[in-house]
């Protein structure tokens, strides 16, 4: 029940953002408010089974993601370390596109994350940052197989491949 | 003070020029993986071009098409990837 309400609430907030500046009740018109409530309840009834899944090892629902403190932390992560790493990644890839110097290989890292959300966040961050691309994930213990365009060390530690990202993923998602 | 709309049209024309390069890879690519990469690149370029053209025409609903297209083209990519994996 709580999961259903949370999903509906997220859908309603998205609807309100999309229909901003339309009317007189605050920023919205009355019809938009009512239609948005009905539609987001329907969307919540359909989608609540897949929206918040159970954790990989524990039993409780992962509703902690809705904590606003984590949202603020996530936004800070996006505009701070993530954006800097992404800019460095693009300059690096631009250099390699122009000169053509590559030394590729697939390496394995074990970040020891427990939740699905944390692994998703880390894998997406890895894909968008310097010279690395996540290829496969081991479902049992959360190991990531990473394609590295410039292999310096065949058996690296997680810090060597992706910097401070496992620390941030742990703070945001666990 | 305000940017001329012709700027947005020039940027969109550059996007389509890059899409032609990607279409060359879609035709050449030796394996199916290369072709999906090219299709994914064309998708991203067209979605970005749709957002830019919406600013050129001053219509809000054109951005909504870009959102819908970004989400739906992802479904198509996932279908082809699942087929290659041997799932589905």
């Amino acid at each position, binding site marked *: 029940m709580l999961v259903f309400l949370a999903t509906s609430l997220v859908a309603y907030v998205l609807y309100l953002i999309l229909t901003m500046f339309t009317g007189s009740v605050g920023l919205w018109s009355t019809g938009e408010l009512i239609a948005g409530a009905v539609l987001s309840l329907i969307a919540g009834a359909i989608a609540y089974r897949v929206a918040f899944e159970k954790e990989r090892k524990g039993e409780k629902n992962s509703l902690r993601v809705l904590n606003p403190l984590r949202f603020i932390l996530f936004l800070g992560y996006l505009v701070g370390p993530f954006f800097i790493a992404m800019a460095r990644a693009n300059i690096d890839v631009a250099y390699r596109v122009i000169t053509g110097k590559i030394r590729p290989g697939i390496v394995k890292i074990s970040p020891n994350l427990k939740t699905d959300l944390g692994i998703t966040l880390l894998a997406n961050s890895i894909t968008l940052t310097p010279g690395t691309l996540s290829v496969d994930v081991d479902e049992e213990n959360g190991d990531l197989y990473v394609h590295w365009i410039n292999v310096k060390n065949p058996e690296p530690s997680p810090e060597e491949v992706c910097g401070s990202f496992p620390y941030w993923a742990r703070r945001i998602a666990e | 003070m305000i940017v001329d709309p012709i700027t947005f049209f020039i940027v969109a024309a550059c996007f389509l020029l890059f899409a032609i390069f990607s279409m060359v890879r*879609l035709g050449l690519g030796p394996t199916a993986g290369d*072709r999906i990469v090219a299709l994914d690149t064309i998708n991203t370029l067209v979605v970005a071009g749709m957002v830019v*053209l919406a600013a050129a025409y001053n219509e809000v609903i054109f951005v909504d098409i870009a959102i819908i297209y970004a989400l739906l083209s992802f479904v*198509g990519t996932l279908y*082809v990837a699942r087929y290659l994996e041997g799932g589905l």
Partner: protein
Amino acid sequence: MIVQAIIQVFILVLILAGGILAVWLRDLLAAVIALAGASLLVSLEFYILQAPDVAIAEAGIGAALTTAIYVIALRRTHRKEKE
């Protein structure tokens, strides 16, 4: 408005390239991918011609539904075209 004419020419060249590839390729999965690209650019053409509702319908049908149906059909039959 020479730039808009150039945009139209680029889109039409891309649609033509996608269609020719979809006919010419022997690997049927590659033909499906080329067809998805062509329908994507048809949707962009509707968009340029100021018909947003048709563009949304074409996006839904061309990108997701047609690709899904063709891929499921490929799953049931053969991937390579017979000579």
